[in-house]
C-alpha cells in the first residue's frame, strides 16, 4: 500500500510549529468547529469509537472506549495525560510529532479534553526531550495568545490549561501508572490495577492517558468523519500508523501507512530493504519489546491482532532491521542489559529475572556460556512473563525466548564446547 499521510502530512514544512503557518494549513479548524457548532461531547467520543482509533503507544487499546470509562459526573477534576515519554528502543515517531507538528497535538488535546470534560492536560515528556519541550511550549504559548487554549476559549466558556511535565529519564515512566506516580512527584513505580486510571488516576482523579500519536490522530477523525477514518485501516484498527524504520535499512525513517500494510512491504518497498546489498538476518518489528522475526516471517499485516497471532507484537511500530553482520547474542545482551537496568525494582520477578537473564546473556556473549545457560533462559523467562505488576518483565521475557529459540545455533557457536 502507498504511503497515506495524516498525522505526518505537514512534516515537510519547517514553519509548521508556527501557529500562523500551521493554521494556513488547516490547524485548529476542527477545534474551532467543535466550539462553534457546540458538538456534544458524547458525539465526539462516539466518532472516535467509530473510527476504531487504537492506542498507538504499543498496547493498542481502543481510544474511544478508554475515554468512555471516565465517569461523567465525577465530583473530582479530571485530567488528560499525554504520554510523550517515548523510550522504547527503536521508536522515534513521537519526537517527530512533537517537533514537527505541535499544533496538531494541541488541537487533539483540546478536542479530547472537550469530549471527556477535562480542564487540565499534562504532556508528560521524556527527560531528554529538550528540543521538543521548547517547541511544544512555544506552541502552547502561541495557541493561548490566539485564544485557542487557556480560559474561556473563543468565548465558549471552556477552559483548558496545558502543562508540560518533564520526566527524569526512566523507561518505566512510559508505563501509564508509573507515569502518574512520576507526574505526582513520586518514584516511577507502576501501580496495581485495578483501579484503572480512568477511575483513579493522577492525584486520585479520573485520568485519560494516551500516546502522542493517538491524540494527534483525533483532529483527523473529526475532519474525515469516523467512518472514513476507519475505512483506511483494517477491520479492527482504524486509520494509519507512523512506522519508524531504523537499523540497517537502505532508507531508514518514518513512514505513515494504513494499518494492515504488510511488514515486508514496509521494509522492502518503503524502507528500501537492507542497505549495501547485504542479506537480512532479522527484524525486530515494533520496538525492542517485541519478539524478533526471521526474514521468512515478514509477510504479516501490521495490525495489532495479526501481529499477536504471528507470535510478536505491533508495539510502537518501530521496526529495527538487522543485517547478516549482526550477532544476535550481542543484540540479546545489549537488550537484556537495557531491561535489567530499567526494571523499576518494585516487584520480585522482573527485578531479579531481568538481571539474571542479562548476566547470563553477558556470560554467553563473552564466550563463557554453556548450552545449559540457553535452557536456563528459556526456563526463567516465562517465570517473569505475566507474573509482574506491569508488562516490563514480559517486554524482555518474550523477545528473549524468541531470540534464543530462533537463533539457538548462533548462540551455540559462541560456546567453547
Amino acid at each position, binding site marked *: 500500500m502507498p504511503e497515506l499521510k495524516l498525522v505526518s502530512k505537514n512534516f515537510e514544512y519547517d514553519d509548521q510549529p508556527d501557529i500562523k503557518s500551521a493554521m494556513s494549513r488547516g490547524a485548529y479548524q476542527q477545534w474551532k468547529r467543535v466550539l462553534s457548532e457546540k458538538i456534544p461531547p458524547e458525539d465526539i467520543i462516539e466518532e472516535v469509537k467509530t473510527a476504531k482509533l487504537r492506542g498507538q503507544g504499543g498496547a493498542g487499546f481502543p481510544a474511544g472506549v478508554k475515554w468512555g470509562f471516565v465517569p461523567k459526573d465525577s465530583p473530582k477534576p479530571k485530567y488528560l495525560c499525554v504520554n510523550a515519554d517515548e523510550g522504547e528502543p527503536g521508536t522515534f515517531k513521537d519526537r517527530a510529532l512533537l517537533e514537527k507538528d505541535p499544533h496538531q497535538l494541541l488541537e487533539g488535546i483540546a478536542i479530547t479534553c472537550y469530549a471527556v470534560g477535562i480542564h487540565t492536560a499534562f504532556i508528560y515528556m521524556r527527560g531528554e526531550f529538550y528540543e521538543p519541550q521548547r517547541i511544544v511550549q512555544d506552541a502552547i504559548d502561541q495557541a493561548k495568545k490566539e485564544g485557542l487554549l487557556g480560559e474561556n476559549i473563543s468565548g465558549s466558556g471552556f477552559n483548558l490549561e496545558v502543562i508540560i511535565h518533564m520526566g527524569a529519564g*526512566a523507561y*518505566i515512566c512510559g508505563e501509564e501508572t508509573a507515569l502518574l506516580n512520576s507526574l505526582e512527584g513520586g*518514584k516511577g513505580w507502576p501501580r*496495581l490495577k485495578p483501579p484503572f486510571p480512568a477511575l483513579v488516576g493522577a492525584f486520585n482523579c479520573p485520568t485519560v492517558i494516551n500516546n502522542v500519536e493517538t491524540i494527534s490522530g483525533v483532529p483527523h477523525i473529526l475532519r474525515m468523519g469516523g467512518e472514513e477514518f476507519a475505512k483506511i485501516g483494517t477491520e479492527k484498527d482504524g486509520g494509519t500508523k507512523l512506522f519508524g524504520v531504523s537499523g540497517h535499512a537502505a532508507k531508514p525513517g518514518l513512514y505513515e501507512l494504513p494499518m494492515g500494510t504488510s511488514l515486508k512491504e514496509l521494509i522492502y518497498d518503503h524502507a528500501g530493504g537492507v542497505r549495501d546489498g547485504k542479506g537480512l538476518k532479522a527484524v525486530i518489528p515494533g520496538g525492542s519489546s517485541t519478539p524478533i522475526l526471521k526474514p521468512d516471517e515478514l509477510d504479516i499485516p501490521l495490525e495489532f491482532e495479526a501481529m499477536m497471532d504471528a507470535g510478536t507484537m505491533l508495539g510502537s511500530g518501530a521496526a529495527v532491521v538487522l543485517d547478516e553482520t549482526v550477532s544476535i547474542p550481542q543484540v540479546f545482551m545489549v537488550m537484556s542489559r537495557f531491561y*535489567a*537496568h*530499567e*526494571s*523499576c*525494582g*518494585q*516487584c*520480585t*520477578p522482573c*527485578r*531479579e*529475572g*531481568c*538481571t*539474571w537473564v542479562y*548476566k*547470563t546473556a553477558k*556470560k554467553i556473549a563473552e564466550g563463557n556460556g*554453556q548450552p*545449559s*545457560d540457553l535452557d*536456563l533462559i528459556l*526456563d*526463567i523467562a516465562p*517465570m*517473569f512473563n*505475566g*507474573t*509482574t*505488576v506491569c508488562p516490563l518483565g514480559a517486554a524482555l521475557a518474550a523477545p528473549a525466548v524468541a531470540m534464543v529459540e530462533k537463533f539457538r545455533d548462533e548462540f551455540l557457536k559462541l560456546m567453547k564446547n
Partner: protein
Amino acid sequence: MPEIIINDQQIEVPEGTNLILAARKLGIDIPHFCYHPGLSVAGSCRMCQVEIEQNGRKRIDLACTNPAQDGMTVKTDSPEVKGIVKAVLEFLLLNHPTDCPICDDAGECKLQDYYMLHGLYDNRLNVDKWHKPKVHRAGPNVMLDAERCVLCGRCVRFCDEIWGEKQLGIFGHGSDEVLMNYPGKDLDNPYSGNVVDLCPVGALLDRDFHFQRRSWYLKSVKSICPSCSRGCNTYIHFDTDHDYKSAGKRIMRLKPRYNVDVNRWWICDRGRYGYSSIDNPNRALTPLIAGGETGWEQALTKSETLIRSSLKKPGPDGLALLMAPNATNEDVYLALRLFRDTVKFANLGYDIPSMEKLAADNILLTDDPYPNRRGFKDLGFGSISNTSEAAEIIEAIFAGQIKGLVVCGTNLEGMLGNQIDNLIAKLDWLIVLDTHKSSLMDKASVALPLALPAEREGTFTNVKGLVQKFEKAVEPTGQSLPLWEVLQRLGKRLNAKWSFEETHTVFKSLAEDKPEYDTLNWLATFGVNKGLYLDSW
C-alpha cells in the same frame, strides 16, 4: 457476606476480606512477603498468586489485592500456582546471601519456611551474587543487612503510614535496588522496633538481640507491657537453659502480641527495649534491716513489730502507706485488705505525681508511665475516711502528723530530692518495698525486695479499663517476692482473717468484690487474639 471456596473448602467471610485472610480462616497459609494486615497493600512481592475462577473464567491473580467475592473458587495448590510461587521464591533467593548460620532471624524467617514448604529446588545460579551494605546502623535500635532484604517494603510503609514520617526508603532501581535510610533521616521514631517484627527476613534486626540467642532456644510467655498505662500485649522471650554467653541475662527480648482492642500488632520502643531493668545488677536481692542484709523472717518480724508498736501510738492516724500505681490488681487488693481493713491506716495514697510525663501520641504511648493507675482507681484505693493524695501525705509527714510510713515502689527520692533525709528524720520508722536497690532502701528501717512483672503473674487494668493478665516468665531474682505474697505473709503476722495461696485465688476473691473484673477467665489466655488475625505475618 460473600461465600467462596478455597481448595474445595467453603467459607463465608466479611465483605472486603482479601483472599489471604479468608484462606487463613480455613487454616490455609497463602505465602506472602509484602502483605501485612496492618499496612496498605503493595502487591509487589508477587508471592501470593492464586488461581481464581469467577464467572466461568480462570485467572492467576494476587490473593492480597483480591477481596473475596461471592461465587469465587480459589485454588492455592494448582500446578500452575505452585510453579509461580516456586519461581518467585527462586528469584528472591537468587541473590540472598543465605548466611542463615549467622543470621538472628534464622528459625523465624519466611524465606527459610517457604523454601522448605514451596521451594526445595536445586540451585541454578550461574552468575555472581550482588553485594550490598551488610552492616548498616539504621537507627538507635535497629540495624540493617541490605543483602538479606527482599524489598517487600513493609518497613517503609510502616514508617510512612503508622508513624507518619519517611525514615526508610527503597532506592535505586532494578536489582541494584537497596533499602536504606532516607537521606539525613535516622530510623529513630518511638516505634522503630516494629520494623524488625515486620521484616519477613533477617534484614532488619534488633541491635540489642544481635548474636544473642538462636531463636529456637527462646521460650515465650504472654505478658503485658508495664511501661505505660496502655497495657500493650506482649510476649516475653526468654532463655534460662543456655547461659554460656549472657552472664545471667534471662530475658532476651519482648515482642508485640496482637490485640485488636489495644495495640494491634505494634509496641513502642520504650516498652520493647525496657526489659533490661529485669536482669539488672541493680536489683534488690535480699531483705534489709537498717541497711544490713537479713532474711525474710527477720525482716517481716521487724516490720510487724514496727507496725504493731505504732498502732497504739501514734495510732492509725499517724500511719501511712504510699504505693506507686505499678502494683498489680492483686497487690492492690491485698494492700487494701491489710492496711485499710485490718490495721486500718488512716492515710493511703497512690496518686503519685509522675516524675516523668511521657510524650504521649495518638498511636499507643500514653503520658502515664505507670501501668495500673486505672486499677487503683477502680478498686477504690484509699483509706476508709478519705482518699488521700500522696502529696498530702508527704506534707503531713513534714508537719509531724505521720510517724510511720510504708512505701511500695515509689520513687520518693526522685520526688523529694535532698529533702528525703528531712522526711526520714520526721519518721519513727520507714518500711520500703521495691524492685531495685536505692539509697532509700538502705536508709529504711526495713527494706523488702519485690519481684518484677516478668517474674510473677498478675493483672493490670489499662487506661481504658481493660483488665489483662500477664504470665510469669522467669523466677524472681534473688530472694525477691511478688508484692501480694509479701502482703500475705505480713497480714498473717498482723492477724488478718484471710489467707491466699496463689495469685489466681487472690484475683478470684477480688472479682467477687468487684464484679466488673469478673470478665476474666484466669485459666484461659486473655488479651485474646480475636477474629481472623493471628500474630505472625
